[in-house]
């Protein structure tokens, strides 16, 4: 929603009433950038107090019917709105507005407000900031560093993404830490599919299998803007889905006028960011680590020059990336369209890994009558990720990273002989080269997202209007997962003689809402806005995993085996809400809003009990008061906002399940064992109520020197009460793995600073810069029963785990050190900073770069623990390490490392060719890179890591992940 409100109004009116003007002159003129004199294309020019308007053409020219003494209002994205007398409008210069004060921000299901009147700090990322510097495969990954209050953790570097997005700290322990994603009004699914490989690998749960999260299906290039409601005070109107914040995505739409065709081509490659390194062995260290009998084998390999570097063999590929996009947009009086077809194909840094995405989008807007208009957004996505055998494991011989660390010796020959026979690994559970070459692990998604909205202007009077809107949509996908381990694999020969796990997931989500929106203007200076409506959503999913073992040799069909197993997991979620909200605006001086939402959900113990989520906020624009006479400060706003949101329990929390058993064919029922069908032996709680988040946000916004410098200061206190969580410290002797409780409170406190500036602006150089700073601290305030390990957020306390203890941060890491559970680290960063720059040189060269600093945040480097046990960590010959062996001296605390880093996240340089062809309006070439420089003391693969997937806490524990990649691109862009 980066388009200005005025522009929207204008476009609509221009198209509806194009004729019928009389007794007026034709006023024409040119609109240019005040800084460099460039013509501005598409500026909206509206006759003040009327519905007449025009757009500037490619050369910045406009013409409009008006009297000489009328006032014209010029508005344009990224520029301050300007009012000019028609007689003076022959040459209008507009100033860049770095603070985007006139930008209209979506703040609710049907509400939007001018940024200068906002009472919350709502971050907006437009398409230029999102993908203007460089491209990436996933949308959530493209956000990091561009917003305050956002922490992003990549759970692994496998192609197709696996990203945990956290807004203002910890919101939940039961899986709803990911914000709600809404694309053009459609609630979309962001689940991580499980593929069943845990059955073969022995990983503890589906979350450790390393699947991607489904927001990655959204093509970042389709996005016009993203608005992020970070906390409860901004997101209250979204009720029980909004505890972790809301990400509102608006896709590109067509504009009336000349049809624009855009062709873009990116070519690039993936390469590993950082190798963990390999120990350089000598005969002596081989003897001390692997025994004297190994020395002759090592020496023979050394003499033959056959010492490999298996880390480079695995992760040393340069994976080609090809991304092609074609978009067509345009339209006429009544109908506008936007079409985009794109195809991305990237190879990973390991052979046989990669990601493909084909995406089609059609967005249509149609005006049926003066009162009625509709908008449709259709998106089809087909994506496929080959993620390789990765993830945690227990004796499964599956994960290449795990078996590389524990333990592949570089003098082993693991490559196939002339008959294609792979030798067995001599120390690890599997030959990593065999696994790389012959194990399959893929996901394929077919997804359709359809959004629709209807707007009906029921009443339009001078001082009163009533609008009815309804919007809704559906998100359907079918996800297939496939894991294949040949019967010839080392572990499979000993156990199940081959393994196929084929998953078939279907997910259907639909939602709709309907609102009445009233506007009442009792006097010239007061606007009263009210909304009243309902919201309904329904999510269903069905995940079936079929597995076959005892495979017929070389066969990859589920039927071709001797033993069969099936898992199925169904979910049904239904919610209904009633919403009311009212805003009072006194002459843009004081803007006060109050609202409430009542929600009920079948995830709660009583599905028909409503829970209330109120909000209230006030913004005072001190600079708009008459007494204000500081010309250099055009905005001085104080704001405070309070709101509540909720989060219902994860599906299934109400139940105490039994699971099927079988012993020698005798069937029975008993408590589920760990991880059976991803269902633990849970003692359910039938009377659950939603956990709630209460946030108080306050801040001040400034705009200095003609909007050339903007400053936003925000502080917040967010208390999350009655968190629902599986309490895992329930005694083992209860027979239950956890009990569902909701007696845990935590508080997030933080502040955010954002400084925007346009320090240089002349005909040769234009420089926009944004400096962001943010910090959050989540503290455990109350625990009903006692401290515990959050379920699925760590291994045994011997190795270290996330840990919840009253009075500590909610992001603590702990280990059992000499029998005492000891806090050994905090995964949350102390603070983060980013510095985003867009520089235009000589009008044709655009340079963009984004630096990101994360200070603090501990990482438990269990990759190193594994390689220490394996004896292959590069620094094991360092005298300090010999004197103080990490595990022997410190236990798991020996693997806590500082995860601070400074990273050049994005850098891009684009050159617009200065000449024009007949049919090409604009041609650009560019180069860019993503994550190409990182400065850190962390010794693992990437300090941005998590072994437990994107849900839950998803923090700071590295276990032999798929290493992160950096990317380099060459870009070509043509506009016709």
């Amino acid at each position, binding site marked *: 929603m980066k388009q200005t409100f005025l522009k929207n109004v204008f476009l609509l009116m221009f198209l509806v009433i194009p004729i019928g003007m009389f007794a007026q002159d034709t006023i024409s003129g040119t609109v240019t950038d005040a800084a460099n004199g460039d013509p501005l294309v598409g500026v909206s020019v509206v006759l003040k107090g009327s519905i007449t308007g025009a757009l500037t053409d490619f050369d910045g020219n406009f013409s409009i019917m008006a009297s000489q003494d009328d006032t014209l209002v010029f508005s344009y994205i990224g520029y301050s709105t300007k009012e000019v007398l028609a007689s003076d409008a022959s040459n209008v210069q507009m100033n860049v507005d770095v603070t985007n004060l006139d930008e209209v921000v979506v703040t609710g299901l049907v509400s939007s407000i001018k940024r200068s009147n906002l009472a919350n700090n709502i971050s907006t990322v437009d398409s230029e900031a999102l993908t203007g510097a460089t491209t990436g495969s996933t949308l959530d990954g493209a956000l990091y560093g561009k917003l305050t209050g956002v922490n992003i953790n990549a759970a692994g570097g496998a192609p197709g993404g696996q990203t945990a997005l956290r807004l203002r700290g910890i919101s939940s322990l039961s899986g709803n830490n990911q914000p709600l994603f809404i694309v053009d009004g459609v609630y979309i699914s962001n689940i991580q599919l499980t593929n069943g490989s845990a059955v073969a690998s022995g990983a503890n749960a589906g979350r450790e299998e390393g699947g991607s999260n489904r927001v990655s299906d959204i093509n970042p290039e389709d996005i016009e803007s993203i608005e992020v409601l970070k906390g409860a005070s901004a997101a209250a109107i979204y009720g029980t889905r909004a505890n972790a914040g809301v990400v509102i995505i608006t896709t590109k739409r067509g504009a009336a006028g000349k049809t624009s065709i855009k062709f873009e081509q990116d070519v690039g490659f993936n390469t590993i960011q950082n190798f963990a390194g390999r120990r350089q062995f000598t005969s002596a260290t081989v003897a001390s680590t*692997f*025994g*004297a*009998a190994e020395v002759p084998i090592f020496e023979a390999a050394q003499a033959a020059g056959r010492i490999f570097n298996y880390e480079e063999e695995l992760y040393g590929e340069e994976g080609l990336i090809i991304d092609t996009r074609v978009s067509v947009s345009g339209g006429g009086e009544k109908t506008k369209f936007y079409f985009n077809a794109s195809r991305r194909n990237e190879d990973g840094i390991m052979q046989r890994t990669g990601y493909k995405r084909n995406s089609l989008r059609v967005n249509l807007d149609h005006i049926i009558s003066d009162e009625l208009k509709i908008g449709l957004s259709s998106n089809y996505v087909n994506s496929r990720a080959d993620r390789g055998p990765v993830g945690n494991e227990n004796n499964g011989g599956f994960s290449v990273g*795990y*078996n590389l660390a*524990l333990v592949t010796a570089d003098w082993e020959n693991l490559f196939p002989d002339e008959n294609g026979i792979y030798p067995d690994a*001599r*120390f690890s*559970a599997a030959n990593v080269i065999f696994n790389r070459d012959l194990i399959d692990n893929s996901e394929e998604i077919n997804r359709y997202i359809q959004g629709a909205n209807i707007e009906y202007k*029921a*009443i339009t009077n001078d001082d009163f209007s*009533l609008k*009815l809107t309804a919007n809704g949509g559906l998100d359907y996908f079918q996800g297939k997962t496939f894991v294949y381990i040949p019967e010839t694999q*080392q572990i499979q*020969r*000993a*156990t*199940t003689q081959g393994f196929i796990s084929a998953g078939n997931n279907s997910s259907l989500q639909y939602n709709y809402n309907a609102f*009445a929106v009233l506007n009442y203007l009792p006097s010239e200076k007061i606007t009263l806005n009210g909304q009243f409506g309902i919201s*309904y959503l329904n999510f269903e999913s069905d995940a079936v995993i079929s597995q076959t073992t*005892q495979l017929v040799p070389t066969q990859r069909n589920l039927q071709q085996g*001797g*033993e069969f197993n099936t898992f199925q997991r169904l979910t*049904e979620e239904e919610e*209904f809400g009633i919403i009311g909200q009212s805003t009072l605006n006194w002459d843009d001086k004081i803007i006060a809003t109050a609202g409430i939402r009542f929600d009920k959900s*079948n995830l709660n113990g009583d*599905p*028909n009990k409503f829970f209330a989520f109120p909000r209230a906020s006030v913004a005072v624009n001190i600079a708009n008061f008459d007494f204000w006479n500081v010309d250099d400060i055009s905005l001085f706003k104080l704001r405070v906002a309070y709101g509540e949101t909720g989060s219902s329990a994860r599906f299934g929390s109400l139940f105490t*399940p*039994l*699971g099927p058993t*079988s012993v020698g064919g*005798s*069937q029975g*029922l*008993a*408590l*589920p*064992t760990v991880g059976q*069908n991803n269902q633990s*032996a849970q*003692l*359910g709680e039938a009377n659950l109520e939603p956990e709630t988040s209460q946030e108080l946000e306050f801040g001040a916004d400034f705009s200095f020197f003609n909007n050339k410098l903007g400053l936003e200061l925000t502080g917040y206190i967010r208390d999350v009460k009655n968190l629902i969580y599986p309490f895992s410290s*329930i*005694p*083992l002797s*209860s*027979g*239950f793995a956890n*009990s569902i409780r909701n007696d845990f409170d935590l508080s997030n406190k933080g502040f955010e600073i954002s400084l925007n500036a346009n320090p240089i602006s002349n005909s040769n150089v234009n420089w926009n810069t944004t400096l962001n700073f943010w910090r959050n601290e989540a503290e455990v305030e109350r625990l009903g029963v006692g401290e515990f390990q959050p379920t699925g957020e760590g291994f*045994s*306390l*011997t190795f270290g785990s996330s840990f919840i203890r009253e009075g500590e941060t909610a992001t603590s890491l702990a280990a*059992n050190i*000499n*029998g005492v559970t000891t806090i050994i680290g905090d995964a949350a960063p102390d603070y983060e900073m980013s510095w985003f720059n867009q520089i235009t040189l000589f009008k044709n060269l655009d340079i963009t770069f984004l630096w990101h600093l994360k200070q603090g945040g501990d990482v438990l480097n269990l990759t190193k*623990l594994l390689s220490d*046990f394996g004896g292959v960590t590069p620094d094991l010959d360092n005298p300090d390490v010999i004197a103080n062996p990490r595990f*022997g001296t410190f236990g798991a605390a020996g693997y806590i490392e500082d995860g601070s880093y400074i990273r050049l996240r994005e850098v891009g340089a684009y050159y617009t060719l200065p000449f024009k062809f007949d049919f090409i309006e604009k041609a650009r070439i560019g180069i860019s890179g993503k994550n190409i420089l990182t400065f850190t003391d962390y010794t693992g693969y990437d300090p941005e890591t998590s072994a437990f997937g994107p849900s839950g806490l998803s923090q700071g524990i590295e276990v032999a992940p798929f290493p992160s990649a950096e990317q380099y691109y060459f870009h070509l862009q043509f506009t016709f």
Partner: protein
Amino acid sequence: MKNIRRLVIMTMTLFVLSCSLDGVVDPNQPSLEGVVGDPSLQNLNLLAQGLEARAVNSWGGFITATGSISREMYFFNASDPTTTETLIGKEGGMLTGSEPQLTGTMFGRYQAVKSADFILDAVERSEISDTQKSGFRGIALTFKGYLLLDVLELLGDNGVRVDIADPENLGPFLGRAEGFQAISDLLDQGFAELQSAEFTFQFSEGFEDFDTPTTFAQFNRAIAARVAVRQGDFASALSLLNDSFLELSGANLGTGPKRIYAQGGTELLNPIFKAPQQSGDQYIVHNRFISDIEAGDARINKFRLRNDPVARDGLNGTHEINVYESVTSPIDHIRNEELVLIYAEANIRQANFTEAVDALNIIRNANGLGDYAGAVTEDDLIDEMLYNRTYSLFGEGHAMFDLRRYDRLNDTFLPIDRPGDIIHTQFPIPPFEVQ
């Protein structure tokens, strides 16, 4: 007025769209309330069959823990490298109670105990016949006592929790002596129920010859004899053996109920079997078993020479274990061989040396050794009995407790292979058990 009327109509329309939500019944699996709350014969049979399945669970960690501590074997685990650290007391490290081998075993045992409790609870409200009720109570109480023994033995002097009926209000940890008493009481109650019982459920083939109330009662008494010996009540052990399936002959030493392993579905695979010569993940036999064995003892076949001797983490070995043939080989719950050894031990401790020597000879002869030729004194016979237990029950979770009962679970009796290692004698109670 027209506007207001339109407004009212629209407001009402919005309310009409409001709806009532239905509660959800778990679409994925039966619920506890649904099954235990409906104690039909069919549901009770399913719970009983589930109990047998849960009694098979979590065997690998138990063997790894007891085998490593008693230096039967070193487990070079491809995924959890701490098996050669914590369990062996590397650099003097003490056990913490968080070891997955302990927590996994305890959790498995208590899940099975919970199954037994579900049955005992449901039977109370069931309308089945009294003999059927006794059948369910008989197996529930028997398994409960049997499985709690493993917990008590692992925790040693730290005791055992027996009452877990209410998850919100668990019973106390009983001391060692009290714990043994509670376990033998459970077994006695189970035995009493089995006297006039009827079985309506289907055991797996592992209980093929023990699937009637009469024969299952023999299993109950065999377990009770094991408990009596562990607690040092040798007179009781002898009388309990009378009602067990003890057979003083070398012909049927393998007789006894078994844990069944199978491929597919929710079946489990034999957790101790590792492919011959497999790297990475392997149970390596402690070298003393190779050097100390009597010449001609057929039990040498429980150990297989490796092509590659293993030397990792400062520990080494030349043989891997060869106790089971495949991933689907069954593992005994208890077999006649152990009963003969219990008979021998109880008789030694009751000073019936002739009976003891005869029993030991049954075991010796069956394994290709001649009759016992050593001195017939209590100490010598204890040595001979322990030698036979060591080799006959190798890798089956006995050695740690046998050595401890005879004060041999220490570094005067067992070797220290890596400087700084210590020998643990029992596990602490895991964190969070007592709150």
